[in-house]
């Protein structure tokens, strides 16, 4: 593999391939966004970028890579990142001034590749606040590459960086490489840790660390300063404070999304705008055109594409997911999630996971599809299997949880709310414990870097909320149309009643529900939030009369939560976990949903709420 390129090449070369590389959570995606003017998701925890993201600009092609600690092959992100880094014309290495001694370990490895490089020293404002001073001149001399101090989130230093991309230099390679390896061979294979024996790798790491320590001793000074963010961060590591904060966040979420948005905002949008104004208008419009009656039913019937689908997507789900994503973005950007990972490590290790798994689980409350991809940040395939199963089975996604909160708030029973939570949590614990017992292998231990606590930047929170809502609408709307179309066709062909009767042993006998609830399970095969929307109609939240009692609502809520994940998640699951495992998770979800629902219905028939 040829990686030697001279600096003169850069001046003449058009379409430079500029690769952004660095440790997790140093601000790569912020720098990427500011340089390219696009939006790559950013958060205050490791592992937000899991794939390479490319954008072409006038200067060249910019590629954002996942955060890595080394160019080895410890995990998938390292393999993905190193494939693209070794092909770069220019490497923009972003380091965090707060953790310079840690980050320079990768910097030195990148320099050893012999490619033109620039160093971005980000978050210098935060570092100064904490008493960390970096001598830029000395750092430039020690590394042999240009260094640009930045506060990327405030766009400071970005312009200078853009103007100097052609001035990237090959840095000073570590002389230690040849000395530290037994075969004395300085090769790309060694630098990339390919086929290195454990002994050689250890020796290489020790020597590289020594070189980094030498650099930091000449460039870094630290004064002891009190810092509020650090104080809050440490307080949140106390189980009482940390879990207390979690309870407070959940209560606020319930009040804002469940009570205010699902109550007031949805009532205004769904009932006053869509049901009272839009649906009569669109129905009149379609009725004025003489269409065949079947087409009329498909367009504006009970499950109409232009009536029910629009009502569910824009009247009901859109306001809920905007509220939910706004909340989630605040949480993601604050730095609280990695601390929650530390607090939950002991519990999650009993389920065959480590604390890091709390990140995909919490993100699953936003979107299970994305969360299944995020399980890549877990250290082993075994952990990814357990986490993916838990996500697909027990974690309701944003729109669904918004509706669940709304339905529980409408029923107004604290006892129901607790019973619902207890059922889901018990299912989660039983599933994790059983998988931990039956799956071969061991789980990896936790080692995680805690980012500083930050006040979220409202612009990023709004951008992220907008970006995720947009993604939701683009992904969910076609599936909602498909679901509504299937149900309308079933109704037109008189199959719906046969299906109700066919499923009645499950719905009526096992779950003690009216047979019409088969409808919400058919909707659930397409998307779980679609079935929650159907359920909200059945308890009388929309314009229809209630047909379910509170006990039946609870059973239905549990079944649709545990029921199969949405089509998009299933596709990702097949891609991430393979055909066999994904099929097992899918079928297992259906079985578990009806089994747990059946047990709950039996208990409630003896001990009603």
């Amino acid at each position, binding site marked *: 593999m040829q990686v030697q390129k001279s600096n003169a090449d850069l001046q003449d070369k058009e379409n430079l391939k500029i690769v952004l590389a660095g440790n997790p959570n140093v601000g790569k995606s912020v720098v990427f966004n500011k340089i390219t003017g696009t939006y790559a998701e950013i958060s205050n925890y490791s592992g937000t970028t899991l794939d390479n993201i490319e954008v072409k600009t006038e200067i060249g092609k910019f590629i954002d890579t996942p955060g890595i600690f080394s160019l080895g092959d410890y995990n998938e992100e390292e393999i993905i990142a190193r494939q693209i880094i070794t092909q770069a014309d220019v490497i923009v290495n972003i380091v965090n001034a707060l953790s310079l001694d840690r980050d320079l370990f990768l910097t030195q490895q990148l320099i050893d590749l012999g490619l033109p490089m620039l160093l971005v020293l980000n978050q210098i404002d935060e570092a100064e606040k904490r008493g960390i001073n970096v001598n830029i001149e000395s750092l430039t001399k020690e590394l042999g590459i240009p260094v640009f101090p930045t506060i990327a989130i405030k766009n400071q230093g970005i312009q200078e960086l853009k103007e100097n991309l052609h001035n990237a230099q090959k840095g000073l390679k570590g002389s230690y490489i040849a000395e530290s390896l037994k075969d004395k061979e300085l090769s790309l294979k060694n630098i990339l840790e390919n086929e290195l024996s454990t002994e050689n790798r250890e020796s290489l790491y020790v020597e590289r660390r020594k070189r980094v320590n030498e650099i930091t001793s000449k460039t870094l000074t630290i004064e002891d300063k009190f810092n509020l963010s650090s104080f809050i961060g440490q307080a949140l590591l106390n189980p009482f404070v940390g879990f207390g904060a979690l309870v407070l966040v959940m209560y606020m979420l319930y009040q804002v999304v469940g009570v205010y948005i699902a109550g007031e905002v949805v009532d205004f949008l769904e009932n006053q705008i869509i049901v009272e104004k839009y649906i009569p208008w669109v129905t009149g419009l379609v009725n004025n055109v003489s269409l065949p009656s079947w087409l009329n039913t498909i367009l504006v019937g009970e499950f109409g594409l232009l009536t029910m689908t629009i009502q569910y997507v824009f009247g009901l789900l859109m306001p809920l997911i905007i509220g939910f994503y706004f909340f989630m973005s605040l949480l993601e950007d604050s730095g609280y999630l990695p601390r929650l990972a530390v*607090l939950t*490590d002991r519990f999650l290790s009993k389920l065959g996971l480590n604390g890091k798994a709390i990140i995909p689980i919490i993100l699953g409350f936003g979107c299970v599809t994305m969360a299944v991809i995020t399980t890549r940040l877990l250290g082993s395939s075994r952990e990814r299997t357990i986490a993916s199963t838990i996500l697909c089975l027990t974690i309701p996604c944003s729109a669904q949880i918004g509706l669940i909160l709304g339905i529980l708030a409408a029923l107004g029973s604290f006892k129901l709310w607790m019973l619902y939570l207890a059922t889901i949590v018990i299912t989660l614990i039983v599933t994790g414990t059983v998988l931990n017992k039956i799956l071969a292998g061991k789980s990896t231990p936790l*080692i995680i*870097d805690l980012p500083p606590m930050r006040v979220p930047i409202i612009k990023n929170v709004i951008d992220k909320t907008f970006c995720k809502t947009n993604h939701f609408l683009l992904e969910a709307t076609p599936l909602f149309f498909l679901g509504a179309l299937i149900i309308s066709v079933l109704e037109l062909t008189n199959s719906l009643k046969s299906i109700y009767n066919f499923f009645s042993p499950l719905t009526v006998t096992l779950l003690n529900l009216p047979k019409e609830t088969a409808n919400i399970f058919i909707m659930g095969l397409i998307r779980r939030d679609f079935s929650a929307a159907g359920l909200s109609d059945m308890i009388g939240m929309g314009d229809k009369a209630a047909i379910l009692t509170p006990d039946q609502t609870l059973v239905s809520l549990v079944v649709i939560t545990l029921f199969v994940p949405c089509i998009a998640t299933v596709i990702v699951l097949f891609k991430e976990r393979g055909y066999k495992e994904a099929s097992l998770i899918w079928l297992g979800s259906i079985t578990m949903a009806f089994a747990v629902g059946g047990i709950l219905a039996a208990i409630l028939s003896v001990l009603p709420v």
Partner: protein
Amino acid sequence: MVALSEMKIGQEAEVQSFMDSDIKCYSARFGIEEGQVVRCIAKPGAIVLQKNTQEIAIGKKLCKEIRVRVI
């Protein structure tokens, strides 16, 4: 010498050795190496260490594999 998991909140210690090479390499990536002085700042199951201004959480199992000398 004691295991890292034996550290108490507020104590400082110097990292002495790692039980195996993989753990040593993995820890080096986070800046934890032999001779490094770390401070235990929290212990909610996992151990949270402070190294300069950097905070690193290490799971209990892994802590048993790292030997330190309390200062």
